């Protein structure tokens, strides 16, 4: 698989379409663009030789691969080159720290008030910027002070003849457990028994920070936990766009994990909105939706393009009476997972997001919607407008008056 990706560079005809779309090379000369860093520079890379460090300024948003008319796996080539680069030069401490959300979560959750205070205390953020190279203004999420796992252990999902496994990922577990509760409520409302197996990080942040070996360990452990369900034919649903894509494609295509568990899991993994829309197409989605007289700008995250499922949230939200959804025509919010947290990349990330921020602000809306957690935090950071997962709008329209605690 790794070689197939590398070989795809031979299909590059230098048409520059990827260059035209790259949101990052548009705003910074530090990233010369996907064509230069990808198919062109790749010809000069060999084991132990990483001729250019600019590949580290690729965010991995994947838009280049999507728009390429010749099937060159540009983003994948760049992800592998980035890992080689850090293997040669040693992974910085910062990249090791921010790439382990579940470790941070386990430390931060019990001391959430203190941790949240520290994350907002300017002197400490200055210190973190100096010591760890994490930008002082970067949108760090707040610990919820409780975990979704703990809630799920005490929650009894009604037994029905249809089951679904919920892969909630780290963002839901440590920062937004309320979103997880809404996912469970919406799935149960539609007649599903929701299984929440114990689960740890999928390894994606480690992958995008160049630590492929540890990323592989994480994803192998996760799919080993989920595989028994997959083999029983139970679908796996995730509200984390990027972590879901890790299971569907990236672990195999970028990390080169060739594993029967991964294959079994990937084939039955669905993005939450993809899953709900499939239910609707089969006539199985409940449509007892109350009116929500709101205007909501919607941003489809870059990683969702990698799923190749279009924008299922648009069709789902169209089912809610009186809800007006504005499809935002901007490719990237700039955060790209952990990219925008980094001292040297924060300004780039904000410049990439500016068009999106402007469109959200100009919509005058009180709330925006986006499937991906880090993108939501970035949108709120850039606009002051709260951003929700589309499931929250469905949850409200279904009138599910669960005691969901604020996230």
């Amino acid at each position, binding site marked *: 698989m790794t070689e197939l990706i590398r070989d795809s560079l031979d299909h590059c005809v230098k048409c520059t*379409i990827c260059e035209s779309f790259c949101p990052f090379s548009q705003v910074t000369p530090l990233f010369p663009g996907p064509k230069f860093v990808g198919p062109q520079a790749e010809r000069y890379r060999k084991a132990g030789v990483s001729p250019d460090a600019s590949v580290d300024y690729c965010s991995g948003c994947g838009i280049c691969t*999507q728009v390429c008319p010749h099937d060159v796996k540009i983003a994948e080539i760049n992800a592998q080159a980035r890992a080689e680069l850090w293997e040669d030069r040693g992974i910085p401490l910062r990249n090791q720290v921010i790439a382990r959300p579940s470790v941070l979560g386990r430390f931060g959750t019990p001391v959430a008030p203190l941790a949240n205070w520290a994350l907002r205390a300017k002197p400490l953020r200055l210190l973190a910027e100096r010591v760890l190279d994490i930008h002082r203004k970067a949108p760090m999420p707040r610990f919820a002070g409780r975990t979704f796992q703990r809630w799920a252990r005490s929650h009894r999902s009604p037994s029905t003849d249809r089951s679904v496994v919920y892969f909630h990922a780290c963002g839901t577990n440590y920062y937004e457990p309320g979103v997880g509760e809404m996912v469970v409520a919406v799935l149960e409302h539609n007649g599903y028994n929701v299984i929440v197996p114990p689960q740890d990080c999928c390894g994606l942040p480690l992958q995008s920070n160049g630590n492929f070996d540890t990323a592989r360990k994480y994803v192998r452990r996760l799919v080993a936990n989920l595989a028994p369900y997959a083999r029983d034919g139970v679908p796996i649903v995730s509200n984390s766009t990027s972590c879901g894509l890790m299971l569907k494609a990236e672990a195999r295509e970028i990390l080169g994990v060739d594993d029967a568990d991964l294959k079994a899991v990937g084939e039955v993994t669905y993005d939450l909105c993809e899953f709900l829309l499939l239910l609707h197409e089969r006539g199985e989605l409940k449509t007892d939706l109350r009116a929500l007289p709101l205007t909501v700008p919607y941003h489809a995250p870059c990683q969702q393009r990698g799923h190749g499922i279009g924008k299922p949230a648009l069709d789902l939200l169209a089912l809610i009476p009186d809800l007006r959804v504005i499809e935002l025509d901007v490719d990237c919010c700039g955060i790209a997972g952990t990219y925008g947290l980094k001292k040297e990349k924060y300004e780039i990330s904000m410049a990439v997001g500016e068009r999106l921020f402007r469109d959200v602000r100009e919509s005058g809306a009180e709330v925006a919607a986006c499937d991906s957690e880090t993108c939501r935090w970035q949108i709120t950071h850039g606009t002051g407008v709260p951003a929700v997962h589309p499931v929250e709008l469905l949850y409200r329209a279904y009138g599910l008056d669960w005691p969901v605690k604020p996230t």
Partner: protein
Amino acid sequence: MTNDTIVIGAGLAGLTAALRLADEGRRVLVIARGVGSTHLAPPTIDVLGFADGEVERPGEALSRLAADHPYNRFPAEVIAAGIEWFKARLPDLGYRGGLEENFLLPTAVGAVRPSAVVPETMAGGDLRGGGRFVFVGLRLKDFYPAYLAENLAHRGRVEARAIEVDLPRGEDGRTLGLARRFEQPAFRDALVRDLSGRVEPGERVGFPAVLGLRKAGEVWRELERRLERPVFEVATLPPSVPGIRLYEALTAELRQAGGRLLIGQDVIGVETAGGRVESVVSEAAARPTTHRAHSFVLATGGLAAGGIKVDSRGSVKEAVFDLALAGLPATNGRPRFLPTYLDEQPLDRVGVPVDDRLRPTDTDGRLRFENLHVAGATLAGAVPWREGSGNGLSLATGYAVGTIIAGSS
């Protein structure tokens, strides 16, 4: 969810058909492997530029084309209607012209491009009336105004000269980087200052086509006003900034009209039954995804775009449906390519043969699929790059297919 129409391909032909149908309230899905050649080529609508020499009146010259040319598959009024629809549908791009007479636009190497319909930002480069032209270089890679001017003057139609402007162009000196700079007032101020006194009375002022991306109309009008001269853009090497404007305008209108775009997905399979296409299968992450529709449009381009594929053994195939191909030369020992690159090549006219509703047929004229229509460079019988007919064919056939499908159910 069943779509009314699925369009395969996101070039001018596919997007035109899709927008035409979305405007009729149809549920349309566009699936494409990637972005099409709008990003590479000038956005001029060249209907017919060359047919036994340079064409002055494209509408009249259509009759000179062979009977099996795609333009002859439908009445010439459809071509005219497509052009009028296009001009009215994208008013911000200010397209001008029609089938009566070609504009003659200078290219970046000082050749001449006959074009029927051109965006307002390029129209001022029309060479038909003669006159004096000055071309402004911005130290843009692959745009050499002296070379352009000399070649153009050599043809004898016009007087032409070149000037170079050295501006703080920022780090990104490529076309898109420059286009973004043109949207900054301070950059335009510096440019106008630099040009004042260097442009002579009576001259038309040509720039490489980088006068802004999203605000090109405003930028162009401002430059005309401040320089007090006609200003125009000359198409550059890729990426084509005015071509990107066209793609962005078409896709934005399509989204507004309720159409859906799935870019980056190969169609890897098709399901057919009883002479109809039932669905196409795209290669989504982890598992193939089936998309159903009542009708389908194939607009995947020709040999250059991969809609028609040639393998290393010389076998030629239509990539999605494995449709029959017309215009294939005999295989027995004849070469597939001639060493004189610019000559008529044996595979030049290869494409999908169609009936008068632009539906694919076998080589003996028998209909293959009653709900599949073909548009753009996938069609047999045209040689767009020699005829100067690329975008004209895409617009006309995309519009025709949209009209046929809209009228039929």
